[in-house]
């Protein structure tokens, strides 16, 4: 089972949230989808928790690293083969060159 991340609960002005809750809220924090009260509690926790600052930083670095993956275009020969396959399947004849 997947646990939903958006476990935003109303927090009173002085409410404390745990490192575990911070971790669950990271995605919504980064996309600025936390409600104002939870965002305040989140930031207040970060101000005094180096563990969560480190965790957040490595989470962001992971997202950046995934985002940096680069992929090649379709190889020319493969493109020709697929085109030929489609023409034969659909029209029953190889494509005109």
């Amino acid at each position, binding site marked *: 089972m*997947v*646990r*939903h*991340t*958006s476990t935003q609960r109303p927090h009173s002005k002085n409410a404390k949230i*745990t*490192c*575990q*809750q911070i*971790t*669950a809220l*990271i*995605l*919504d924090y980064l*996309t600025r989808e936390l409600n104002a009260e939870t965002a305040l509690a989140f930031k207040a926790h970060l101000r005094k928790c*180096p*563990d*969560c*600052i*480190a*965790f957040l*930083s*490595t*989470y*962001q*670095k*992971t*997202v950046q*690293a*995934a*985002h*940096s*993956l*680069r*992929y*090649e*275009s*379709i*190889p020319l020969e*493969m*493109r020709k*083969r*697929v*085109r030929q*396959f*489609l*023409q034969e*399947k*659909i*029209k029953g004849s190889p*494509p005109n060159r």
Partner: protein
Amino acid sequence: MGQRGSTEVLHSTAKGQTSYDEERVLIQRVKAGDYEAFEAIFRQHVSRVYRQAFKLIGNEAETEEVVQEVFLAVHQKVKTFRGESAFSTWLYRLTTNVALSRLRKRKRSKEVLLDDYLPRFHEDGHHEVRPVFNWGNELDVRLEKQELHRLIREALEELPPVDKAVIVSSDLEGISNREIGESLALSIPAVKARLHRARLFLRGKLAVSLGYSPS
């Protein structure tokens, strides 16, 4: 996150791409059985379909089969495309689902326990392993870019198919959570939950590769 959304292709006429109106005409011609129009659609979209499929499938041979299957499906199903979304969105969904169907049929070579790479906490909610190291900068220093990319690709391969489709669509393709949810028949909270878990897993794998605890 930057949104490299699926609709952007339609609005650029630079580099010889077709405009939205031209594409709509092409699609009408394909619906009417015009094979030249189908080939124009193929030329326009094959690179994007290939890249999207490759990100999910991970090897050229199977990706080629997926690309074939996708364009055959385009030819067979284009009559069901009613233009309510952009054609590129429709094609993105089609490609995701063809690739996902193939991933689901795969025998997973080894069962990786995702939980082994997810953060763990004490009952009081503190991180189980403290201090948490900020190894972010070490990634660039200790790993060559190629090595980093290899690690990420391997970690992606270990994810369950739907989780993989979600993180690839979101973090590699820049597709919005709403569009991902519509493609995979998931609610937005479910998309976010899977995305978060997949990111935590990748993070855990990177941490371990640098000699740190995933927690």
